[in-house]
């Protein structure tokens, strides 16, 4: 009985934390005014927000009835895939020039996104013009 009460409180706290960070993420998405800073909001939602909600789900399933570990998988897949989409958004921003031009790298010629192969250079220039 006491364990169930404790679990209920834990679930409630996790849900509140998750909802709070979701809300903050959405506020950030609306508030920031350039594409690169806006990219920082979803990374928060996908880590802490969804993480806390899934944790609540795990606790719930283990205290009340059939335990399930699917949520851990959801979290793992999310943590593996979220950085890749963020990376692509960033690359598109650099490509479209919708952010400050990044400083040149220390050692190499340029950044991979801006590195146009010799054969395609003509097409790239036409596009820019």
């Amino acid at each position: 009985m006491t364990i169930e009460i404790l679990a209920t409180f834990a679930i409630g706290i996790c849900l509140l934390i998750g909802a709070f960070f979701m809300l903050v993420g959405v506020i950030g998405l609306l508030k920031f005014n350039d594409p690169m800073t806006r990219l920082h909001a979803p990374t928060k939602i996908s880590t802490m927000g969804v993480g806390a909600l899934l944790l609540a789900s795990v606790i719930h399933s283990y205290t009340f009835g059939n335990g399930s570990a699917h949520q851990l998988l959801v979290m793992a897949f999310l943590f593996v895939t979220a950085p890749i989409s963020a990376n692509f958004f960033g690359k598109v921003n650099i490509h479209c020039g919708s952010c400050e031009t990044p400083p040149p790298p220390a050692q190499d010629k340029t950044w991979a996104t801006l590195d146009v192969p010799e054969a395609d250079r003509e097409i790239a220039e036409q596009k820019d013009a």
Partner: protein
Amino acid sequence: MKRAFHWLFPHPLLTLLLAVVWTLLQNDVSAGMVVFGLILGVIIPRITAAWWPDSPQGFRVGRMIAYIALVIWDIMVANVEVAWIVLTRPNSKLRPTWVVVPLDLRQPEAITVLAGTITLTPGTVSTDLSSDGHSLLVHTLDTDDPDAVRDEIKQRYERRLKEIFV
């Protein structure tokens, strides 16, 4: 014998991981499911081995677990910091910057893990790799000292990853 083992298990850890993921997906820890997971864990790495020729040789699992724990802790701390910035700081006072992180890591797998870590920790997003893979482009949400951010990434994450991927 050793070659036969290597042919059958090109990535022993991947085999184990696939078996665990399969068992978790089924939500049922029974002998049948575990065996079927192991069968999948043998077949999938074997079929896809051709597309992953230079797999990392040394990989320390114990240190990787410690690293994951550290990253989860950092995610929680940084989340609170970024939430504070979002709620209290007006846009005009925000100081977003590009940070260039020179890389000592060479293996593509290690660089991928580092880039993923940087993106998952709120406040920094890894955006691009230089054309020959010697530095990483990181965007920070708000900082007054880009050099400190660079040093922290190198000190805290890259140094540990160098010990994991030997």
